């Protein structure tokens, strides 16, 4: 939805070449999908070097695993899954899962948004990004994949590795939390 059109057929060809050790083909894939994966990681981790590290490690892991990649999913979907898993692990390690109804913790410094970088952002947008920190890792992942990346519930279930029913619950709770957090901005 929000992402650029996916040249899936050409991706499959390049992924096959990369799996056979063609590093030029892999570089094309990294350049093609890096920006959208960085957006995903930034939404999940709050931006900064953590997001860069997550995407970098995800691509290196992909390079190592490509010889076993059978193309059951598209390369893009496969990468979404690797990046999401890495981000979830990092979020889980960062702090214990906050119950949804708990008061949102003040955003950690890396979540905070410097006024200069976001001069063009409205205050509401800044508030929305800050509010994301109050979601549990899985709620955040499901909601971001849905709202910022336009994935279907089915694709989110595959990407996050939870059931369709669980995705529905996570997205509902995320929406409950975020509509409340953003109430003052309406």
């Amino acid at each position, binding site marked *: 939805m929000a992402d650029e059109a996916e040249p899936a057929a050409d991706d499959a060809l390049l992924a096959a070449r990369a799996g056979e050790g063609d590093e030029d083909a892999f570089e094309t894939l*990294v350049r093609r999908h890096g920006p959208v994966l960085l957006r995903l990681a930034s939404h999940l981790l709050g931006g900064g070097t953590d997001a860069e590290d997550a995407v970098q490690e995800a691509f290196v892991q992909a390079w190592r695993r490509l010889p076993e990649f059978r193309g059951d999913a598209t390369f893009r979907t496969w990468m979404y899954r690797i990046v999401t898993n890495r981000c979830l692990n990092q979020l889980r390690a960062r702090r214990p899962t906050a119950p949804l109804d708990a008061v949102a913790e003040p955003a950690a410094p890396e979540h905070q948004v410097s006024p200069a970088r976001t001069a063009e952002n409205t205050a509401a*947008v*800044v508030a929305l990004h800050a509010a994301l920190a109050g979601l549990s890792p899985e709620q955040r992942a499901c909601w971001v994949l849905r709202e910022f990346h336009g994935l279907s519930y089915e694709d989110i279930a595959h990407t996050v590795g939870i059931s369709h029913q669980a995705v529905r619950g996570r997205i509902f709770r995320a929406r409950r939390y975020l509509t409340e957090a953003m109430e003052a901005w309406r």
Partner: protein
Amino acid sequence: MALNEPLDSEELPCGRSLQDVWESWDEGTTGKDPHYASCPHCSAALAELRALGDFVEQSRAAAPEPPGAPDARAVTTRVMDIVRLELRPGRRLPLGEPDEDAWIVEAAAAKTFRAAAESLPGVRAGSCRIEPLGAGSGTSRGPVRVRLAVTAELTWTVPRLADAVRERVARAAREAIGLDVQAIDIEVVDLVDTMDTTDTTDRRTR
């Protein structure tokens, strides 16, 4: 939180669950149910969700990259620096005469054969495997078999395409590498209207 925990789907005063109302928004079915337009509770719930959606849209419009967005180019450079330390050259293939000790790695030969196939207009090469013809011969010297997968534009017919690619690969084996190729299998994966030729680095066609 437990997976089997009942969803606190929160019933609205009209009896509808908030979760159902919001999911019908996802499915785009709110317009089909007259209840939504007439019910103040459902309307308010949908307005809340719509407002949240507006914030998301604002976020996209204000900054396609989220705050503190990282640099994609820097990440690509770092990824490729690591990848080049972890190359997968594949098996060694014998070059020249049986008593020589000259070899080429499979990845390098495959790169040459793919480029040879792509020197034809409207042809893209995918998987390329090269293996010794004698079964179980390991790294022993002897002729090899090439299997190459290609995608091409519809201006090609399959037999003409297979012949043309086979001819290019054979010539590259002979003239560019000096590899004893005795069998060339061409797999035509797909014929497409127009080839997406954007941003590939090593194309020589057109």
